[in-house]
């Protein structure tokens, strides 16, 4: 059986389960960014007229799209994948079919990125209601969200395949995800950080996801798009390679 097909069977399983919970996930995915944008955009935006050539609302709105992609992909690849792997023993059932470990892992990453693209679309909708979408470049925003989702899901998968319990995820969230949320340019430009911190931020994937997404949403020209894509792809490839090794070691004992 072709690899692509096997991967899609895993993707489809998750899609069918998720479809039932569409209501709650719509509320979450539209409600949350709406509240953040109202609170931050209008509240903080009242004091800050302009950031990097755009209104503060536009600035935060485009940042939230990227950080939501990061959170959605990470949570799915941490909690949901762990649930399927350990308590639910779904992968054990899958490994009695022609599917292999690589099919399962890639199918999961594909699913995480899909879910995160859906979230991204919801937020874009909210953002456009606030008038923060400028220009046709926004059409490219969703593919970029998808690529970012693949990247963040792959990284989280490294943690999940090694985790011994859900508690393990706190390390990853606190030491990696939250710092990116705070320091990678969601709420203010990375350049305002002390030079050392700004340099570190340049090595983190969220910085590059934002560097791609923000111009696309607010209608500014992209700068160095290939560099930003390359960073996301390198993180993806390295993480997938490690996650697959860990997954094989864990599932094929």
């Amino acid at each position, binding site marked *: 059986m072709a690899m692509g097909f*096997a991967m899609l*069977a895993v993707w489809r*399983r998750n899609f*069918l389960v998720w479809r039932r919970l569409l209501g709650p996930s719509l509320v979450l995915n539209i409600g949350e960014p709406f509240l953040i944008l109202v609170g931050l955009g209008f509240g903080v935006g009242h004091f800050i007229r302009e950031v990097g050539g755009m209104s503060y609302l536009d600035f935060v709105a485009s940042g939230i799209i990227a950080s939501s992609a990061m959170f959605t992909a990470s949570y799915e690849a941490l909690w949901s994948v762990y649930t399927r792997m350990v308590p639910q*023993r779904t992968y054990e059932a899958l490994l*009695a079919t*022609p599917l292999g470990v690589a099919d399962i892992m890639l199918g999961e990453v594909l699913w995480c990125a899909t879910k995160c693209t859906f979230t991204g679309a919801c937020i874009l909708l909210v953002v456009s209601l606030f008038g923060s979408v400028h220009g046709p470049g926004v059409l490219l925003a969703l593919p970029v969200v998808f690529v970012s989702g693949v990247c963040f899901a792959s990284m989280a998968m490294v943690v999940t395949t090694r985790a011994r319990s859900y508690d393990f995820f706190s390390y990853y969230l606190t030491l990696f995800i939250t710092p990116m949320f705070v320091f990678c340019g969601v709420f203010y430009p990375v350049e305002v950080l002390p030079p050392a911190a700004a340099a570190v931020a340049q090595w983190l994937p969220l910085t590059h996801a934002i560097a791609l997404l923000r111009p696309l949403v607010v209608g500014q020209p992209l700068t160095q798009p290939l560099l930003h894509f390359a960073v996301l792809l390198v993180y993806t490839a390295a993480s997938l390679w490690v996650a697959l090794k860990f997954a094989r070691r864990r599932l*094929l*004992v």
Partner: protein
Amino acid sequence: MISASGLRKSYNGREAVCGVDFSVAAGACAGLLGPNGAGKTTVIRMILGQSPLSGGELAVFGLAMPAAAARVRARTGVVPQLDNLDPDFTAAENLETYARYFGIKAAQFAGRKEALLDFAALGGRGDARIETLSGGMRRRLSIARALVNDPQLIVLDEPTTGLDPQARHLIWARLRRLRQQGKTMLLTTHYMEEAERLCDEVFIMDAGRIIARGAPKELIRRTVEPHVFEVEAAAEAATAAAQAAGARVETVGDVLLAYTAEPEAVAAALKTMAGPGVLRRPASLEDVFLRLTGRGLRD
């Protein structure tokens, strides 16, 4: 269908399977027996390509494992020791999504779905969620799920553990029907009666080795005397009397087991000594099992 030679598996230096040779012919039903921890599930996991071999050779459908895992699993049905049905789906959806993992589309599968649910005596329960099914229903659904790809080989790891007698009989009937259809089967069980009823050949494992093999009837004939007397709460005197009458005696807990080829003498001896609590029966696979694997607790 399956052939293993010198098959070994060790976990962190501890040997779970220490060099076993066996083969299962096409169309046969083979039983893998053994106390807890004997290595039955480990052998099955290697057959399915879920566990790399530590040594030896293993071929399924003539294909070398674990290299051919995907191709072998495409033609195999698996009932795992612990149910791993998908709790996010109903009974029917479980079958449908599982078929999809074999590349079988919903349209192709539509006709078979009801037939499989009926086979599992779950007709009309297709819409039930997994957590609402009883243990026996889940087990039956697991068996139905193992058949979605119309497998040539079916591997069942303790298919009836934890089930009531009715459920067990139903599953036996289904497995016999599958055997009539020409499926090759490999099953593990702790119920010797089950192995005796279903299996053409059994392999008794202990501590990672196969210590006996053969057709159940022949194994009984070879290993133990044909007649058994069981005496509950047996007194020392009863044991002595049985021994004096030429029986080989063993005690399990407070039960005396007297094995003999000459039942009349032993019957007479025990009649005077043990009163009414004497049960006479033919030797069974359980006697073989206990004789070969000892009476102490494992694990």
